[in-house]
């Protein structure tokens, strides 16, 4: 398998250099970000971005019009139907051939995460734990996969299935898999990072086995559920503050699904507007008063 490593001042620059060297387009490679660039202190100890580009073995005849769902996992450019948000933000279409530099990898990734978390923002359960029989195949397989993962992580825990509160009308049922046991604190991680990783892997495996999207939220000890509740309260408190002080309030940096909770919590309010600013880990939500005209 052909793969090369490249460095550059930014992740985007490193990718562009790699693409130029391989003479391919962004759609033909997988990009692994090995190292984010760091600026160092006053230019000392600055480190370049390092990326690895791997040629995908897709120099086969054109794909059939409807690729199998499995292809979703490897395709660097998922179907646009999944990304209405990004489509809006993109500048008017350019012919793809003339695209000399790839879409900035970092923001693209952030957007992808946003999309991914979109429907799963609200981790609030409705009602109590339900039995396996009351859940559907996706939830049952997800629970089984999650238990297999936990067993291999040497965590002795049980997993309960709950129904998630829906965030919009007519959307598919979402399930919360809540892990309980004595070591569950270990499963949360910094800013919920470990939970996100578990959730991502569980969804990938489930959607491979059963086709279709796996609407699964992985929680531990109700962490996300209570965090989601606290974030909604915080959002409203900060919105009130923005109004009373007549200025924009900036929240702490948050991961994508948490930013989404803030956006959704304030969506119904007409007196404030929310925006995300910054890149990657530093991305945060701002809340501004809306001037009534």
């Amino acid at each position: 398998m052909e793969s090369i490593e490249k460095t550059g001042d930014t992740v985007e620059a490193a990718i562009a250099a790699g693409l130029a060297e391989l003479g391919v387009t962004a759609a033909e490679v997988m990009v692994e970000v090995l190292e984010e660039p760091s600026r160092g202190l006053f230019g000392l100890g600055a480190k370049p971005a390092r990326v690895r580009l791997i040629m995908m073995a897709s120099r086969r005849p054109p794909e059939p019009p409807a690729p199998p769902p499995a292809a979703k996992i490897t395709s660097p450019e998922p179907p646009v139907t999944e990304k209405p948000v990004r489509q809006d933000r993109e500048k008017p279409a350019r012919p793809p051939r003339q695209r000399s530099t790839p879409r900035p990898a970092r923001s693209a990734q952030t957007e992808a995460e946003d999309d991914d978390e979109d429907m799963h923002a609200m981790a609030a359960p409705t009602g109590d734990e339900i039995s396996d029989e009351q859940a559907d195949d996706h939830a049952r397989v997800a629970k089984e996969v999650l238990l297999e993962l936990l067993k291999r992580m040497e965590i002795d825990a049980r997993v309960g299935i709950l129904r998630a509160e829906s965030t919009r009308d007519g959307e598919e049922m979402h399930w919360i898999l809540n892990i309980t046991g004595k070591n569950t604190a270990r499963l949360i991680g910094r800013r919920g990072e470990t939970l996100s990783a578990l959730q991502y892997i569980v969804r990938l495996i489930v959607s491979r086995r059963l086709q279709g999207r796996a609407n699964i939220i992985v929680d531990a000890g109700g962490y996300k559920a209570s965090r989601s509740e606290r974030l909604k309260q915080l959002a409203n408190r900060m919105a009130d503050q923005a109004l009373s002080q007549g200025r924009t309030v900036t929240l702490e940096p948050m991961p994508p699904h948490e930013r989404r909770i803030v956006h959704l919590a304030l969506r119904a309010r007409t007196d404030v507007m929310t925006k995300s600013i910054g890149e990657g880990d530093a991305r945060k939500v701002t809340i501004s008063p809306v001037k009534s005209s």
Partner: protein
Amino acid sequence: MEEDLIRYIAENLVNDPEGVTLNRRDAGRNVILELRVAQGDMGRVIGKSGRVANAMRSLLRAMTEDDHRGRRVILEIE
């Protein structure tokens, strides 16, 4: 063990589970896991922008976080 976790994930994501091999190597107090998969399956264990690989690394970190010896498990995919 860490390699059981990675092997389970890899085997469940690839098209060719037989092509999955995992080698564990000690490097000082750290452990290096070398994951190999069939050529056509590389993308499936790395993911868009390395997302799958990074998720696996997060889980490994969670497993060794409260290890008193400060041991780390490093995942290499090749």
